[in-house]
């Protein structure tokens, strides 16, 4: 078995892309940085709002800040030396390659299903050699046993594939965090493949 120092030595050389810095992206990023991943590339166009605090890795006094700036601040408090390349931009078909083509793994961490679909279709078509870890279905509470990982080649999808957000089924910290951390765990598994 490798030591945690060996694991960290490998992870410190890796770059992970995260598309979206909301509930999935901000929590996944914090777990990856805590694990020792050396560099993250994060893209999001949104600003922190008080309603985000029920699940996203931000703080009350950050309301109004650009999410990518607030996330950089928070991640640097965990790991001052980690490299964070953040982009305050909407991810579209025109910039996916520019943003993420140097990544060892990319995490799909959007809120909106349409956005998820654009990124997944683009990545699987144009960058199929980069592993992609996506998420679908984590609103509400309970039913944790239904949350699973589907693997198809280089593509992974975490979630229950059915719990969609709505007025009566809001996204809340526990299930969103479970799925964000499942994504982070798959990223580690992919990055550490060479050890095992």
């Amino acid at each position: 078995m490798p030591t945690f120092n060996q694991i960290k030595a490998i992870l410190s050389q890796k770059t992970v892309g995260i598309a979206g810095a909301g509930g999935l992206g901000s929590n996944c990023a914090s777990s990856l940085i805590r694990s020792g991943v050396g560099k993250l590339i994060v893209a999001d166009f949104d600003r922190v709002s008080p309603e985000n605090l029920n699940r996203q890795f931000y703080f009350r006094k950050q309301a109004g800040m650009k999410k990518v700036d607030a996330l950089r601040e928070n991640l640097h408090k965990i790991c001052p030396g980690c490299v964070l390349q953040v982009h305050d931009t909407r991810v579209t078909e025109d910039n996916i390659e520019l943003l993420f083509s140097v990544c060892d793994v990319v995490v799909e961490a959007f809120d909106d299903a349409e956005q998820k679909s654009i990124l997944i279709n683009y990545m699987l078509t144009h960058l199929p050699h980069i592993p992609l870890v996506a998420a679908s279905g984590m609103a509400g509470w309970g039913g944790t046993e239904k949350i699973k990982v589907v693997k198809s080649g280089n593509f992974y999808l975490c979630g229950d594939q059915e719990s969609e957000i709505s007025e009566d089924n809001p996204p809340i910290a526990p299930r969103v965090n479970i799925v964000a951390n499942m994504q982070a765990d798959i990223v580690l598994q992919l990055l550490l493949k060479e050890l095992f």
Partner: protein
Amino acid sequence: MKIILNNRPETFDADSLTVSQIMDLKSFHFKMLVVRLNDHLVKKEDYSLTDVKEGDDLKIIHLVSGG
């Protein structure tokens, strides 16, 4: 034919069906889907052109909002 649909064995009374036909038979009517046939992406415009045959591994994945 026997195929693997979403990691489960499934039998259809035909030698070959298109992805669209299987979606109809199994009532996959979500708007946002990712379809993988033997670990390759099948694009939306190709659902009715892509044949699924004996032994194939088909995954029809739902994308729902939330994150």
